[in-house]
């Protein structure tokens, strides 16, 4: 048998004091092999202290980076730490760490990202119709773009292997990254898979996507999708011009 793989669970959290302890505890209980890293994205409550007290390592950017920048911090940490696997689990308690096993089981050779989906089984997930409709629009578009059935492209319950970690540490979308990330994987010929998971209603705090922002969210993600389609190589290969440069 090959040696056990090293694994990191990244928990992006923004003002999740109500739920973060439960999430970290559940991770340590259900996934004891995973190191737990909480990205406290500029919270103004006790998220950092509570996460540390629960036994997680905490990385705290000096200001709020948004979900994309926060999760990318986790990718950089995983890459630099030489982790074989990285899981992404929301800090609001809507993902059940006990289901990480399902994601892990689906991470077979040739698969680079496993995504927990609420929609592989119909009628399980109860969210406002408007939100589900939006997700299905993205799912339909994305499925056509990548030539593969994608049912829940907005899900942030994911497991990545080394190749995906390296890709996203270099380049990860800014604002609402999940949908675009699927397209990036496809462009780099990495493979994804979905497995059915349950998702809970949020345990506390508030979603980063409020009703007022949902239109902006739709438009921004659609724009990002079409721009990404037109972009041949979103990631810089060695020897290319630096994507971020002072000059």
């Amino acid at each position: 048998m090959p040696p056990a793989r090293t694994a990191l669970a990244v928990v992006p959290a923004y003002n999740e004091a109500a739920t973060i302890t439960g999430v970290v505890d559940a991770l340590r209980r259900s996934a004891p092999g995973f190191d737990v890293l909480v990205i406290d994205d500029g919270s103004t409550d006790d998220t950092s202290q509570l996460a540390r007290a629960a036994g997680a390592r905490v990385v705290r950017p000096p200001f709020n980076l948004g979900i994309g920048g926060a999760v990318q911090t986790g990718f950089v940490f995983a890459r630099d730490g030489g982790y074989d696997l990285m899981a992404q689990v929301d800090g609001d308690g809507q993902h059940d760490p006990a289901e990480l096993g399902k994601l892990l089981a689906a991470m077979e050779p040739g698969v680079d990202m496993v995504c927990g989906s609420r929609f592989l089984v119909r009628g399980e997930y109860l969210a406002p119709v408007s939100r589900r409709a939006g997700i299905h629009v993205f799912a339909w578009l994305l499925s056509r773009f990548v030539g593969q059935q994608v049912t829940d492209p907005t899900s942030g319950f994911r497991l990545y292997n080394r190749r995906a970690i390296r890709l996203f540490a270099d380049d990860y979308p800014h604002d609402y990254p999940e949908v675009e990330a699927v397209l990036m994987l496809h462009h780099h010929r990495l493979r994804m898979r979905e497995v059915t998971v349950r998702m809970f209603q949020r345990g506390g705090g508030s979603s980063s996507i409020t009703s007022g922002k949902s239109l902006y969210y739709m438009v921004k993600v659609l724009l990002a999708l079409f721009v990404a389609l037109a972009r041949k190589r979103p990631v810089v290969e060695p020897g290319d011009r630096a994507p971020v440069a002072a000059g």
Partner: protein
Amino acid sequence: MDVRIQIVGIIGAALLLLVILELVRRRRLLERYALLWLLAGVVLLGLAVWRGALEVLAELVGIASPPNALFFVAFGFVLVLLLHFSVAVSRLTDQSKVLAQRVALLEERAGPPHTARRRDGDDADLVAVDDREGVPSASA
């Protein structure tokens, strides 16, 4: 063409050029951002001085009054400059994101912050016994 608008155009463009050059001289404006501004100033000044060029341009794009062509060109420069700034802001956003991530990771690696050392005793024990009398006062 009315000579007054020509005079206003020349004075305006010349002032713009002077302000830009002065800002660069005082290092308040980086050369790379000044280049586009300088180009705008020079072109506008040229068009204001050389009426023939303005009339040709107006005729070319179908503007009835040549002074309006001056506004047309100036507006074009404003749009290009704004776009230039949006690009610059986007780059700065990206750079600050990367910096924030590195700072966060370095801080985590550096370990918990230094905390104050608790002592027994009271404030008098802050200094050595021998030195207590000789603490210089503000009036000394």
